[in-house]
């Protein structure tokens, strides 16, 4: 039985006991008192009347008059006079006078009062026996009324007590509920801290659990930091802390090959023209310092665009990848400003930043190839360098072989195709036993005679500000798909949608309306949400979680430290970006990092899935490192429902 139920039983039991006890005591003591009073009255009156009669002439008329005079006061039920032989001399009897009292109550109370008896003396002889019984019908009525009144009061007092008890129980139950929630959270590796309740025992419990949460949290945080520094050693340039060439190019390739929002964006190449002379003039230390400042500026810029990243392609060249960015001219101006701002501040070594930089900006799209992009950038960079200014940036304008011309055409085409519905193409994510984790769905729209992937229309959705509408359609399509074939489905939501309160609300409604399917829906949000908008993410998780769906982060890989901070957010899984897990073979240090990531995730109760497993050996290596699932080009689902990973 639950504690609260027991409390209620005790309270109710006590109330009933108090009520029935008081009622019983009150009724019995009144009963005794009344009975005694009536008995005394009977005895007294009998004696007084007998005494009077003893002193008077004993003729019938006098006795009759005396008896009836006494009787007619109305307070008697019986006045009887019998002679010594027992013959009745005079007798007056009245009704019992019990009115307005239930019969059962009369039977229950049943006053047992003996009649008063006294002898009347005539000289030395006894003359007669006087028997007198007082009228006590009123006593039943009085007792009945007082019982009713008492019951009424008790009902009132009981009501008030119950209200108080309710308040009290609630005061216990609420913090208890919070403690249980926290314990459950900890059970799910979500190391939350809870507000301390006022009840002392519960407070101590919560304090202890909070301490546990904090200790575990700190521990995880430390692990995360160690992993991140390991990863940086592996993948970052030692001087500027930007991505190394190979890592950057891997990621770029992944972006270009992806079929989601990352397939569009901007690529910037920035060259430090006078690096050799700078080195000679100011020495390595100053040069490195200024390179770091430059890299920091670029990293800031990349962070501003959410999922952007900076790489150092060689000593001189930096590249910036900004997925989703499209306004080249605007970006060029931003870059000018940032670089100018650098020159205005004196560096640590007392030398003002004076690196000469040339740069080029280009947009990329789903069909672009990496070599072509770089050769276009190289050409533009050469132009910029020719200008010989301290900072010179060129924008590569290239012919956009777009499906439609202009915003209006796109708007019409998108609206029309959205009204026809979103199509989902899926690829499986499977675990070590080849069981399906979920189907990773990519949305497609029917545009210009073909089903086109999101990489093609996503920028336009953003530009036209109809992303949220599209993503709600996508949720509908996913829920319908789950309802149709019963397989769990994951879909990717954009940051813009999650910021949109209306979207969050409508998403909730849809999940509520499809509770069964909601349990098989896996929602993925960009990693940048966790790096920049932790609170936003937390409230989103809280809002959707209760509906039963899973929530995860996609394309994780830029900052492993963050994983440690995810412990109380309420996420269910992470997908580690392909760039982080490629080139696994013979790279023991990378394996160490990945094993660390997997165990960190597990200790926080997160599933960890690798994106971009290339073949079965790669997948097997990942499983051995502790990954719970893999996705990738080699992972296939047969129509009969079993899964394979191609060699």
């Amino acid at each position, binding site marked *: 039985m639950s504690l609260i139920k027991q409390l209620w039983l005790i309270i109710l039991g006590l109330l009933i006991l108090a009520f029935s006890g008081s009622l019983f005591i009150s009724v019995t003591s009144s009963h*005794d008192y009344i009975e*005694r009073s009536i*008995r*005394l009255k009977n*005895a*007294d009156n*009998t*004696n*007084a009347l*007998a*005494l009077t009669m*003893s*002193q008077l002439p004993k003729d019938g008329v006098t006795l009759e008059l005396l008896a009836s005079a006494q009787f007619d006061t109305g307070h008697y039920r019986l006045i009887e006079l019998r002679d*010594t*032989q027992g013959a009745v001399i005079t007798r007056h009897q009245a009704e019992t006078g019990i009115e307005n009292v239930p019969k059962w109550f009369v039977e229950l109370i049943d006053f047992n009062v*003996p009649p*008063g*008896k*006294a*002898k009347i*003396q005539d*000289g*030395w*002889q*006894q003359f007669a026996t006087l028997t007198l019984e007082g009228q006590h019908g009123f006593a039943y009525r009085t007792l009945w009324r007082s019982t009713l009144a008492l019951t009424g009061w008790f009902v009132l007092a009981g009501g008030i007590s119950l209200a108080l008890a309710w308040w009290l129980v609630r005061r216990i139950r609420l913090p208890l509920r919070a403690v249980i929630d926290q314990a459950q959270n900890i059970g799910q590796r979500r190391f939350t801290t809870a507000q301390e309740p006022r009840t002392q025992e519960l407070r101590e419990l919560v304090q202890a659990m909070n301490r546990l949460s904090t200790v575990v949290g700190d521990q995880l945080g430390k692990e995360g930091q160690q992993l991140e520094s390991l990863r940086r050693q592996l993948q970052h340039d030692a001087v500027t802390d930007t991505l190394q060439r190979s890592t950057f190019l891997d990621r770029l390739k992944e972006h270009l090959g992806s079929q989601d929002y990352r397939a569009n964006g901007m690529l910037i190449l920035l060259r430090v023209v006078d690096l050799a002379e700078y080195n000679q003039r100011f020495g390595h230390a100053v040069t490195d310092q200024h390179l770091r400042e430059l890299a920091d500026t670029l990293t800031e810029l990349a962070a501003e665009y959410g999922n952007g990243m900076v790489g150092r392609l060689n000593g001189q060249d930096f590249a910036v990848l900004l997925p989703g960015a499209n306004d080249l001219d605007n970006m060029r101006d931003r870059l000018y400003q940032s670089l100018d701002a650098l020159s205005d501040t004196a560096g640590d070594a007392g030398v003002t930043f004076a690196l000469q930089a040339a740069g080029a900006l280009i947009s990329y799209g789903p069909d672009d190839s990496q070599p072509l992009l770089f050769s276009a950038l190289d050409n533009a960079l050469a132009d910029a360098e020719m200008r010989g200014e301290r900072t010179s940036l060129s924008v590569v304008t290239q012919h956009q072989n777009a499906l439609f011309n202009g915003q209006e055409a796109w708007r019409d085409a998108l609206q029309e195709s959205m009204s026809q519905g979103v199509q989902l193409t899926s690829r499986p994510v499977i675990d070590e036993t080849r069981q399906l984790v979920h189907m990773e769905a990519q949305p497609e729209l029917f545009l210009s005679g073909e089903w086109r992937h999101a990489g093609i229309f996503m920028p336009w959705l953003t530009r036209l500000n109809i992303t949220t509408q599209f993503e709600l359609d996508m949720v509908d399509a996913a829920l319908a798909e789950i309802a149709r074939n019963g397989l769990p489905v994951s879909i990717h939501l954009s940051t813009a949608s999650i910021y949109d309160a209306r979207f969050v609300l409508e998403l909730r409604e849809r999940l509520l309306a499809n509770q069964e399917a909601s349990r098989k829906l896996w929602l993925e949000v960009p990693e940048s949400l966790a790096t920049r908008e932790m609170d936003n993410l937390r409230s989103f998780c809280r809002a959707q979680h209760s509906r039963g769906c899973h929530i995860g982060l996609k394309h994780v890989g830029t900052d492993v430290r963050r994983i440690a901070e995810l412990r109380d957010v309420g996420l269910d899984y992470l997908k580690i970006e392909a760039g982080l897990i490629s080139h696994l073979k013979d790279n023991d240090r990378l394996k160490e990092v990945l094993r660390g990531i997997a165990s960190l995730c597990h200790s926080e109760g997160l599933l960890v899935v690798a994106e971009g497993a290339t073949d079965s050996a790669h997948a097997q290596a990942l499983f051995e490192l502790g990954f719970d699932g893999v996705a990738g080009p080699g992972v296939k689902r047969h129509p009969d429902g079993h899964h394979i990973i191609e060699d």
Partner: protein
Amino acid sequence: MMLAGLFGAGLLGWPGSKMLADLDQEQLRRSMRQAYGQAGLTAVEEWLALLNRLQQQPVNIQLGAVNDFFNLRVGWRDDIDIWNQKDYWATPLETLARGKGDCEDYTIGKYATLRQLNVAEEKLRLIYVKAWLGRGQGAQAHMVLGYYHTPGSEPLILDNIIPNITRGGERTDLEPLFSFNGSGLWAQGSSQSRADPLERLSRWRSVIERMQQHGFLRGR
């Protein structure tokens, strides 16, 4: 003075007559010795001897012996002199131990003793009488014990003014006013006293309580 006790007396009664079995003789001796010393002890012994002697005797012998026993051993005094109370009703043994008592003390002592000897309650009545002491002394409130052989018969009077038992009609010096006995104080069939505070006010109750304390009634 005697009438003051009337309404209280109306409630009085006497426990079921169970003879000497109801007496806790040891307790009687102890309590009387404690209260009155050797005199108390002597009184108890004499009284118990009387009870033993009379147990199997016919009622007229019992009446005479009890009447004489009290009349001989108790000297008449007013309550105020003995007990410093105006109208104190003493128990039979208090009366015997002191050797002094007023008219109620005689009457109660005789009544209680006869009840111990199993004389039916309805035959015994305590009678308030007006006593003419003669030669201009006027009338005085007095109490005697009446023995009614039948409810309608003329009673035999046990009195201390005239120590011989006489019929009521022969006592021209006494004018009966009212009579009572112990019936009604005890609930029908119950030997348990109706112990409640109001009844304790009655003089009879107080006498009975003291008798219980002294050991008249066992195991109450």
